[in-house]
């Protein structure tokens, strides 16, 4: 597009037909070429719409809270510890980073949107937004506060940019009133945001 299109835009991005038409074209061609099968499609959809999600990570966290041995294993080898509970798969080479009274951890992927799928499912839109990717490394304290997560000034913030193969899960601190609750009850208290590090429990 040239500068004189009368709309003040000399470069509005390439023309594109509606995404639903393009996606349908892509899917149809892949089925015809036998790269996709109905069985594979069903498995993938069921997996990512029902079987993986933050409820998996919550189980990992709750177990780590009640079982010191499991916690040690999780910190040593998160991939193996998650697999023990049945959580593994793509984007599943994982590491756990522990929040303490002195340290708050938060995860970002500045170059794309890497995320620990087996324990958190697919990432929410905000995690994939240019704004989150750009700002979390430069101004984590301000951005966390904007997102409602107020980290005290005397607590160090460690940002993890997952730029190679490891995918990070934050091990949050248990909330007040967690004492005496069962592992299942505790798992109910663990939110996705606390495991990304944009919330404290």
């Amino acid at each position, binding site marked *: 597009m040239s500068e004189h299109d009368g709309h003040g835009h000399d*470069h*509005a*991005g*390439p*023309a*594109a*037909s*509606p*995404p*639903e*038409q*393009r*996606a*349908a*074209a*892509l*899917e149809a*061609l*892949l089925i015809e*070429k036998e*790269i*996709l099968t109905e069985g*594979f*499609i069903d498995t*993938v959809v069921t997996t*990512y*719409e029902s079987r993986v999600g933050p409820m998996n990570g919550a189980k990992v966290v709750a177990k780590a809270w009640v079982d010191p041995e499991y916690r040690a294993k999780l910190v040593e080898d998160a991939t193996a510890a998650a697999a023990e509970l049945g959580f593994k798969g793509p984007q599943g080479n994982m*590491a756990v980073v522990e929040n303490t009274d002195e340290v708050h951890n938060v995860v970002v992927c*500045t*170059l*794309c949107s890497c995320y620990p799928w087996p324990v958190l499912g*697919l990432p929410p*839109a*905000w995690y*994939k*937004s*240019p*704004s989150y990717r*750009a*700002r979390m*490394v*430069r*101004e*984590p304290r*301000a*951005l966390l506060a*904007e997102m409602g997560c107020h980290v005290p*000034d005397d*607590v*160090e*913030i*460690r*940002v*993890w*940019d*997952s*730029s*190679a*193969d*490891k995918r990070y899960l934050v091990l949050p601190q248990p909330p007040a009133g967690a004492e005496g609750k069962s592992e299942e009850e505790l798992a109910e208290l663990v939110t996705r945001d606390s495991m990304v590090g944009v919330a404290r429990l």
Partner: protein
Amino acid sequence: MDAIHDLGGKQGFGTVAIEPAEPVFHEPWERSVFVAVLGVLRGGIGNNSQFRHAMERMDPVHYLSGSYFEKWMTGIATLLAEKGVVTQEELEARAGGPFPLAPNPELKDVPDPAPDGDTARFAPGDAVVVTKDRPSWHTRCPEYVRGRRGEVVAVRGTVAVPHIEVHRNERTPEQTYSVRFEGSELWGSAAEPGTSTTVDLFQSYLEAA
């Protein structure tokens, strides 16, 4: 490649919009795109690094204005076209309109993998400096750490070197490390106190400090 995807530390993007109770997919077409990507990568037609690199090569306005699944759709279709599995004409005929793909500029002098990349040269506690190199080819070294000094906090094991995987379609293992950078080292006087960023970097991106 110093493309628009390298967003760490960039300003001007405003607040992070949060959608409560967000579904996994907002539209059925996003589900189709997700399945297509998993199917293509599982089928060995291309690797994950090539898929990523295809998205990085997108027109910058298309990249920034497009949603995540818009980028995925463009990236996987670009990969399929470049591998000769489909043509842009086929895609556009089926879509009933334009199906933009990412351009693929010619690259010169993509370097060989570093020798002995699978042997760990650094250990936790080591001070390192990231190379100042700004490769025109695929890299997983973000601009905001280039030339900056950090400390190795973990050895993360070998991973296929990204630019070799993309540009030669070969897997050469190289050690990776978590390297911690103080906020002040990255942002200078604009840094927030008591903050650091830990970045996972390949051994060939690092030098002893």
